[in-house]
């Protein structure tokens, strides 16, 4: 039977084994009012704050002094988040934790040349997402139906089955591709796990941080005024960001290029993305400047066509679209008898 130790749980604290491990070690989260919990609570709060900035918390295990504290900080972070009850923070946290786990999964698959090292990441992928991964030389091999169910959500052509190595009912992938394939589910799994957990009532010593989280969440929820002149695809993208949900890269690209075409500057556009679960101001500005053509090779990117947006599931056509072929035409084109 596979032995899962505290090092593994520090990497993947969302596993069911975490509860058992902590119980065996004698940690009782029913006694949270004990002063010993205070530093762990502060660590947990920090973990949430890091997540809200779009960065990945503690991806280098070597830097950790105490692995048990790391595991506990995840558990307490969930208690704080559930007590604050702010969905936008839970979404950001689960996305950040998913990215963190993704990084570890990739490392474990990549460096785990022998079966014992590969056992845990493969078990996680199998138990959590019902995907059986086999090893064939340097490749990770999964069944075609398992591949299709996930790959159809990707827009890049390299994910089309016709562009993969396929043989005998299986698709051959690298470690990176294997983990990329389950990214969405990892986020969904951690989120649903947090949502479904029953957490104990918190002691007074935790209340101040919970209040801080509520204030933080409200800052993220400040709404942006949506111009009624925007086409439905742009409105939808802005609404997704406002809800603190993840807008795919292609959607962010569409929004940025559209607003730039309408004369908005990087400074005006950047704040729109502050609600994105993986928001990072520096990266956002860099990417916007790149799209605007003020960095990189100087290429200024145009807003994608309606056809392209349709193929990316970003089109939400309404009658007012009136046969336009690019969102920037919205509101300009009129029928001849209008």
């Amino acid at each position, binding site marked *: 039977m596979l032995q899962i130790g505290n090092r593994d749980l520090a990497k993947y604290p969302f596993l069911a084994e975490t509860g058992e491990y902590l119980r065996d070690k004698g940690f009782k989260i029913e006694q949270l009012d004990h002063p010993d919990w205070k530093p762990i609570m502060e660590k947990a709060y920090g973990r949430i704050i890091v997540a809200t900035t779009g960065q990945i918390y503690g991806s280098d295990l070597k830097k950790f002094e105490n692995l048990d504290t790391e595991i506990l900080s995840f558990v307490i972070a969930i208690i704080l988040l559930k007590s604050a009850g702010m969905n936008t923070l839970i979404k950001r946290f689960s996305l950040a934790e998913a990215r963190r786990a993704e990084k570890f999964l990739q490392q474990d698959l990549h460096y785990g040349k022998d079966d014992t090292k590969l056992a845990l990441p493969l078990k996680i992928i199998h138990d959590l997402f019902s995907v059986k991964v086999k090893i064939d030389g340097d490749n990770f091999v999964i069944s*075609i139906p398992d591949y299709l169910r996930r790959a159809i959500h990707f827009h890049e052509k390299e994910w*089309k*089955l*016709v562009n993969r190595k*396929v*043989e005998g009912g299986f698709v051959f992938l690298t470690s990176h591709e294997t983990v990329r394939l389950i990214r969405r589910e990892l986020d969904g799994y951690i989120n649903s796990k947090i949502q479904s957990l029953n957490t104990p009532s918190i002691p007074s010593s935790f209340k101040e941080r919970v209040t801080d989280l509520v204030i933080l969440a409200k800052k993220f929820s400040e709404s942006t005024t949506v111009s009624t002149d925007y086409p439905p695809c742009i409105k939808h993208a802005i609404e997704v960001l406002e809800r603190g949900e993840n807008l795919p890269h292609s959607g962010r690209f569409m929004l940025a290029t559209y607003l730039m075409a309408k004369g908005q500057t990087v400074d005006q556009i950047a704040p729109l993305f502050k609600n994105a679960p993986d928001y990072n101001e520096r990266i956002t500005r860099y990417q916007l400047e790149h799209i605007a053509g003020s960095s990189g090779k100087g290429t200024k990117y145009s807003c994608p066509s309606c056809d392209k947006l349709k193929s990316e599931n970003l089109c939400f056509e309404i009658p007012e679209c009136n046969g336009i072929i690019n969102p920037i035409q919205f509101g300009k084109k009129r029928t001849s008898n209008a």
Partner: protein
Amino acid sequence: MLDKSVRFLEEAFKEYYFNNLQIIHVPTRPSEREFGYQKFNSGMTRHISLKNDNELHLLLMTQVPSDVYCSNAYYSFPNLPMQEKDWKEADLIFDIDAKDLHLDCRKEHTCYKCTSCKEITNDQTTCSECGSSKFETISTVCERCITESTKEVKKLLEILTDDLGIKSQEIAVYFSGNEGFHIHVTSKGYQNLDSRERAELADYIMFNGAIPETFGMSKQKSSKASFPHIDEKGWRGRIAKEILGSKTRSSKIIQELFSGGYSVFQLKLEDLKQRIGVRIDPKVTMDVHRIFRLEGSINSKSGLSKILCKDLDTFDPFSEACLIDDKKVEVIANSPISFRLKDEKYGPYINEKVSVPKYAAVYMICKGLAEVLQ
């Protein structure tokens, strides 16, 4: 079609079903499938549940349908409206139709019927009788259509078994009863796929959406060493074989291929798609709620039966699927195109009274090329 021709077809179909009940069966798991049928000059009746062969045979004898269908999908409640059926899973189905192959021979066995005056001509410019420009297309199939369709079926079977790992015993090839083949796959692993996933599978089979990067060519950094070897599996191997031919690793050919750049390479892939991609109808494969013609039933577009092809190499639909009897029947035939059934050539006929075997009479009436005389 005249009423007397409809009555004639009904009689012929009823007699066929009565004499051939032993070859007409419900498929596996019948109580989870939706059945449907059509009567001559009438609409479709769907959402029927049949539990066994007896219930099917009773339907055939009492309703005398022109066409009988059965779902590839399995439902909890097949007789309820679509949104209440509770879809469980569905067999994978592929449709290969000679019409979609755009063969040169088609013009030799295609004619046009004016929708106003029913005059039949070889071209569809303007009707010489009434001047109308609206025509119904009537086509038959020839040996070449079947040979070329069979080639597509064989290409498909290779991909299904080698690439998709489906066992031969999970694949059944049927002649559709008219112009092509239906390939039914009952492999457990693929039955759960939804419509979008099936569309992606269809793209794979058709070699749709391949990018040069898959074969070593990139806009930024191309690598000739990444060009596939002919012994590779899947599309990479097929493309290598197609481009290199017998020259296992001709650096000259690869050099030439890469020298044209990315867009030329992309065009080359498009060209190869037309040649080596399998020409299935993707709409059929991605539809998980469709009902398909039932094995053993007659196709009212031709009077031929949908039957299992046991040996594709020797399969002759013009004999093996032609199961109506050969009693002589008199018809007024107006068929500018000839056709062959049971090794006998019929036509062309120009509005003439002819005495032909019943199967040939049924064939022409179903195609709209004749009316029964009595």
